[in-house]
């Protein structure tokens, strides 16, 4: 019931938003329902309900371990959204607001889906709901980006559907009655037909990996993040990717039960490292600071999948990283959005000396960059350190070496771009366009808050969070 509520509240909000007449006051729906959602989530977080094994939708440990992060991120982004939409008051925000809320609702559904099919439906729905958000700016570039997002993402979605069917058939073949809840599949365990399970794993990994943005299925990411408003980028990077990751974890539990855990882990390790490498190489050369964020997100998805490949400790670290990365990335996307709007261009060939024009956003951007490249005492430092430690503890010496190497290259790339746009003397054109942009509290406070939370998360990780992550780990690796 509660689980359904989490999904329903934002959807109701979306409907109301569509109906709401005033373009000026409509944005307030975002923080209102975001707050409502967050209250619900935190209430459930503090009083985790007992989820029936057969339930299709439930606030189970895995959902409990990640959904609050998404809700929190959404809340802050919603606050930013009010200020942002005031700047963009020339456009109607009816669709924008409604769909943002819808995305939140569907994300909640996706995170809590305990049924293979339902999970797929929710993810697909999120993908589709995000489409109009991407081309909110209405430029040809935006449409192009949307088109690519749609077809690449659609292909991924199709593959994951096929994968779901394969898993279903595996259970049928193993004598199942076609109950596709993860609980049931896990219970079937080694009875599942091996070839079908492996096929399913590959398809699902590629499918949901496409949503996550793992290389080489990441190609939609730079275009989409590059053209979408910062707030959308933040929610995509912090929320949608998380759904896909949760999905992979849930599937991983089934595969593990079927006795194919080691193979799954190795594939995760390989694809994770590959994504990090590709992202690092792109970061070394890219000249557009919003695309840079996209590649950095690819890199961090690689980190997540690397962590997920390392067994219990690794998964716990990965869940930690979901939080720290989501919050920090959010701050980066929002401040980058400010800079982009002020400078009128995302390219470091044009944009220079933003520390003079938008000092606060620039400061947040630089700090966020340091935070996301694992500078203590921000969250990512601790989570990545946990990942490294888990990797070394499980004897992946060489892989860890490559992991650190990729982090290093990525650091070079990021610092190059960030300092490139922050330092130096701005061009007159940039000055002119920046003079029309005011750094109001509305656009500065949210990223600042996110940074603050990333900091607090790192320094004083709440014990209850650790406990939640461990519970989630127990769900992924059930210990009979």
């Amino acid at each position, binding site marked *: 019931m509660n689980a359904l509520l989490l999904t329903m509240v934002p959807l109701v909000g979306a409907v109301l938003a569509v109906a709401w007449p005033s373009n000026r006051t409509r944005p307030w729906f975002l923080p209102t329902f975001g707050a409502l959602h967050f209250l619900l989530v935190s209430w459930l977080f503090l009083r985790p309900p007992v989820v029936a094994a057969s339930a299709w939708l439930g606030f189970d440990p895995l959902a409990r371990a990640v959904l609050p992060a998404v809700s929190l991120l959404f809340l802050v982004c919603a606050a930013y959204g009010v200020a942002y939409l005031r700047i963009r008051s020339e456009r109607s925000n009816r669709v924008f607001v409604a769909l943002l809320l819808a995305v939140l609702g569907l994300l909640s559904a996706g995170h809590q889906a305990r049924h293979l099919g339902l999970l797929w439906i929710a993810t697909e729905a999120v993908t589709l709901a995000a489409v109009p958000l991407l081309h909110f700016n209405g430029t040809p570039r935006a449409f192009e980006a949307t088109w690519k997002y*749609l077809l690449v993402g659609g292909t991924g979605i199709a593959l994951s559907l096929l994968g779901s069917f394969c898993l279903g058939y595996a259970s049928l073949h193993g004598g199942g009655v076609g109950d596709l809840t993860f609980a049931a599949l896990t219970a079937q365990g080694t009875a599942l037909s091996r070839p079908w399970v492996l096929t399913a794993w590959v398809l699902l990994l590629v499918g949901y990996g496409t949503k996550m943005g793992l290389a080489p299925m990441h190609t939609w990411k730079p275009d989409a993040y590059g053209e979408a408003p910062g707030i959308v980028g933040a929610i995509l990077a912090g929320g949608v990717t998380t759904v896909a990751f949760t999905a992979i974890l849930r599937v991983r539990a089934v595969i593990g039960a079927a006795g194919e855990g080691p193979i799954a882990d190795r594939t995760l390790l390989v694809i994770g490292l590959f994504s990090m490498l590709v992202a690092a190489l792109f970061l070394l050369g890219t000249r557009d600071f919003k*695309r840079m964020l996209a590649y950095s997100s690819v890199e961090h998805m690689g980190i997540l999948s690397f962590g997920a490949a390392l067994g219990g400790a690794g998964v716990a670290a990965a869940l930690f990283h979901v939080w720290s990365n989501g919050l920090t990335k959010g701050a980066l996307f929002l401040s980058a959005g400010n800079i982009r709007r002020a400078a009128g261009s995302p390219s470091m060939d044009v944009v220079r000396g933003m520390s003079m024009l938008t000092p606060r956003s620039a400061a947040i951007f630089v700090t966020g960059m340091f935070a996301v490249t694992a500078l203590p005492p921000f969250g990512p430092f601790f989570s990545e350190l946990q990942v490294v430690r888990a990797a070394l503890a499980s004897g992946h010496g060489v892989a860890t070496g490559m992991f650190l190497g990729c982090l290093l290259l990525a650091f070079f790339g990021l610092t190059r771009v960030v300092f490139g746009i922050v330092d130096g003397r701005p061009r007159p054109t940039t000055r002119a366009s920046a003079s029309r942009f005011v750094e109001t509290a509305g656009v500065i406070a949210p990223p600042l808050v996110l940074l603050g939370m990333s900091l607090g998360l790192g320094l004083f990780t709440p014990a209850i969070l650790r406990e939640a992550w461990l519970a989630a780990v127990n769900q992924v690796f059930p210990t009979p």
Partner: protein
Amino acid sequence: MSGGTLNLLIGLAMGLNLLALGSSRLPSLIRSMSLQGVVLGLMPLLMEPERLDWRVVAVALATMAGKGIVIPWLLRRAMRAANIERELQPFLGYVPSLLLGAGGTIAAVALAQALPLLPEHAGTLLVPGAIASMLTGFILLIGRAKAISQVCGYLILENGIYLFGLLLIHSTPLLLESGILLDVTVGVFVTGIIVDRIQRAFDSLDTRKLTTLRE
């Protein structure tokens, strides 16, 4: 009636794949795609007539309506708007795509042997057919330059998956089927809308123009 007719239909679907691969004219591409949709729609009704119940009928009708009528109509509209008739210089020539498709189909049959099937599915061409359609879909997605052809490719891909889904039709509950179907349809609608927007923004549906976003 049993596997025989089913296999016949699947064979027909496979044939339509090749047709889709070979046709340079968009209308015929769309036609073969929609025809395939209808054929697939028929299948659930024919698979096990004795176990026929209302939900299967519902799914079948919805499929036929969606894939046979709605989507083609959308695409034709877009095509007229962009007034393009044929697909000139595709990325992958027609003969190569045909050969690839044919080879793929054979490969599909061979590959399908690797996967164990339940006795009731053992005789059917479901799996090879599904794989073949998906392959066709991918070839179209990769090999064609016009947005519409790509959409068709995507739909044929979906058809393949649907074909595969028939393996589970009796074990998966209605909610699921309908949800999936709904998503697919919405997806196609959205795609249609975007195609339309692109057509307005670039006044062309040639994806060669859609390469401004790059490193």
